[in-house]
């Protein structure tokens, strides 16, 4: 489960953080310029991006606040380094609780070895929880 692989059994029908995480979140490297990443993310309809290395290990996160910084700045200076990440098996109920309590609009979901699974949006979690009722 921590590797984000499919699960089976009666409990597998309940979606979890890894199922809802958006896999199409824009990613970038440490040496790119903030302006380039921002325009790429905006073009894809995102106001966030995840900083990864070539093995997709998460190094940092760019939420809208960070993306609004100096466009000439390098990502390694602009990013929120070492963000809190969550495992794919965390239940939606617990994720929503944490995201609402801490006013997180999104949260990176990674495997236990730090590889990006996707970005979980609070709006997606809230909608899924509503649907489950």
């Amino acid at each position, binding site marked *: 489960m921590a590797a984000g692989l499919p699960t089976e059994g009666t409990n597998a029908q309940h979606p979890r953080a890894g199922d809802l995480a958006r896999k199409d979140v824009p990613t970038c490297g440490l040496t790119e310029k903030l302006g380039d990443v921002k325009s790429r993310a905006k073009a894809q309809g995102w106001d966030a991006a995840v900083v990864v290395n070539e093995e997709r290990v998460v190094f940092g996160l760019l939420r809208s606040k960070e993306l609004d910084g100096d466009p000439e700045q390098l990502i390694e200076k602009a990013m929120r380094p070492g963000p809190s990440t969550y495992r794919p098996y965390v239940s939606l109920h617990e994720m929503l609780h944490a995201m609402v309590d*801490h006013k997180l609009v999104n949260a990176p979901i990674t495997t236990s070895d730090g590889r990006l699974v996707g970005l979980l949006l609070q709006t997606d979690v809230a909608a899924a929880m509503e649907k489950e009722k």
Partner: protein
Amino acid sequence: MTEGTAVKEKCKGCGREIEVCSCCEEPHCPAAICFGCLSQELKQTYRQPHAHGG
């Protein structure tokens, strides 16, 4: 001798002093929580039974 400037917060779970909330990493988080308590709250880890019970 210099004094640390980090603002200390208290974990809502165990009451331990922490520098920043492990969940949102924002200063002055009203629901500040340490990494251990957050992991347990999300069931990413479980408290282990006492290692040398009777």
